[in-house]
């Protein structure tokens, strides 16, 4: 795509200003999400230390005091925000030897690597296949892709992942069933494929629909009429307008992939951060839940902002709107 040349062109200060303004908006939005999540986890009855065998009241009181849980909720909220402003997410209340920062430092790189590879796979396969299906609508390839996409969207990860592990890991013994060692690529194949399948199918369908629409735009007919090579027409005139809806959908998809999947990580025994939300909520590990919610919110909003900036950079009409 002509992305890079256009980005170079739009290195003007208007776009930069727009990007910075989007970045600044991140702060109040994340603050709002943190506040809602902070009070919501505390709404649930029970506390972080209820699951130990019944503690003597004195011990429990000491534990509560050590973690500041004996304070009124308002004071806890203030302290949490103060620590957060210094980049400290607090001690984990269920993995008691770790702070949330340490847990994230272990889990986040794994989830980011897995999600990044899944995202790459989604784009590398999804976009060309979607374009191919749109070029000959109703053809054999299109119908095959449509059926496969329906299957991939309808079948959940917790069916696909174990069946793939059973087939390729247990029976064929081509790939390891689980485990994670840095540098061993074969470990990543099954998790990445099972993680990528649903979003791959969704992106393929989306690309097909928007390319199909773009093919009927008047300027595409003109491009054909003036005798441009069909490949050039698709590359220069069909793909740019078709990219916009795909980009908008990609923000949330990427955030979901990058923050880790509970099912995939549990199944393949990967030390990612997918389990943090459920584990944290079940154990009333308030700080762990908040840590994941913050990472997720920052990723979602950051990626959505990035997508919006890219849209503006790509679309001349939106660029015009910026000047006004």
């Amino acid at each position, binding site marked *: 795509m002509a992305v890079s040349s256009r980005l170079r062109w739009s290195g003007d200060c208007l776009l930069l200003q727009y990007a910075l303004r989007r970045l600044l908006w991140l702060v109040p939005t994340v603050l709002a*999400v943190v506040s*809602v999540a902070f009070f*919501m986890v505390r*709404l*649930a*009855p*029970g506390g972080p230390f209820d699951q130990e065998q019944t503690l003597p009241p004195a011990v429990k009181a000491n534990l509560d005091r050590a973690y500041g849980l004996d304070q009124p909720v308002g004071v806890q909220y203030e302290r949490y925000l103060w620590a957060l402003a210094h980049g400290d997410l607090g001690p984990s209340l269920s993995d008691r030897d770790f702070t949330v920062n340490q847990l994230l430092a272990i889990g986040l790189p794994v989830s980011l690597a897995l999600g990044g590879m899944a995202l790459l796979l989604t784009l590398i396969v999804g976009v060309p296949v979607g374009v191919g299906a749109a070029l000959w609508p109703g053809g054999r390839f299109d119908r095959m892709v449509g059926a496969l996409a*329906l*299957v991939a*969207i*309808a*079948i*959940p990860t*917790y*069916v696909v992942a*174990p*069946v793939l*592990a*059973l087939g390729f890991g*247990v029976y064929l013994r081509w790939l390891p069933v689980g485990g994670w060692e840095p540098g061993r690529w074969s470990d990543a194949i099954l998790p990445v494929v099972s993680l990528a399948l649903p979003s791959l199918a969704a992106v393929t369908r989306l690309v097909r629909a928007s390319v199909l629409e773009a093919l009927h735009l008047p300027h595409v007919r003109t491009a054909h009429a003036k005798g441009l090579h069909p490949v050039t027409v698709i590359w220069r005139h069909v793909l740019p307008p078709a990219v916009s809806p795909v980009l908008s959908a990609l923000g949330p998809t990427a955030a979901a992939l990058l923050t880790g999947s*509970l*099912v995939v990580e549990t*199944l393949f025994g990967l030390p990612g951060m997918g389990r943090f*939300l*459920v584990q944290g*909520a*079940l154990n009333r590990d308030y700080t762990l*839940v908040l840590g994941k*919610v913050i990472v*997720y919110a920052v990723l979602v909003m950051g990626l959505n902002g990035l997508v919006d900036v890219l849209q503006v950079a790509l679309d001349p009409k939106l660029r015009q709107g910026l000047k006004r």
Partner: protein
Amino acid sequence: MRRASRVPLSVWLIAALVVWACVGAVVTRWAPETLDWGHMAMSPSWRYSHWFGTDRLGRDLYARCLAGTRISLGIALVAGVLSVSFGTVYGVLAGFVGGRVDAWMMRCVDVVYALPYVFFVILLTVVAGRGPMMLFVAIASIGWLTVAQIVRAETRRVCQQPFVEAARVLGLAPHTLLWRHVLPNVIAPVLVYATLLIPQLILLESFLSFLGLGIQEPAASLGNLLSQGTQEMEYAPWMLLVPSALLVWVVLSLTAVGEWARARWSVYAA
């Protein structure tokens, strides 16, 4: 047009599954929770009439899958009816009243949307305990959101049509207008969306049960059967493959029915 109006294969597939769920118990002598001490973790066998094999405790997988399918279908159906009816009422009211009420009602929908639903469901389990009732409520509390949005958009569209304006000018009472003219016109897309919603709800239920938050042992649902199958797939692969096949069957054929209905009545629900 003749081709399109033919009943597709997917309708027959789902009908067959529903019939099996109703009468399938006739062909087995095992109950879902009976232990067969002599045959634990046994592969499918005709000799002992364990058609799909047994699990580690010697419970018959055919009977458990049957019970699981019934529960999954039943929960999705009840939660589907709950979310469709609540979402329709909510959406019609918001769209019909309009103005500030509408804005606030839809803002509430947006807020519930923004919360991670697993988190929401866990909070519900803690407050209401784990049982089928909680599951209905938890699943329906997520399912109604999209219904409300679709119905509201449809209501706004219908309300701008000339015949509604005419009825209003003729002095029809608002409730008669709503009942006689607006509701019949928004119901078709709702029904089509409902056929697409049911497989989503089945997936949601099985996901929650897979995580151990839904149907609890010893009761069976497709979700917790799958989760057991995953743990024991290396020595008892049938425990994974049979529930997987059933779930795929249900979800794929229901989704195909929904897409067919959408194309047949050319409704473009979200």
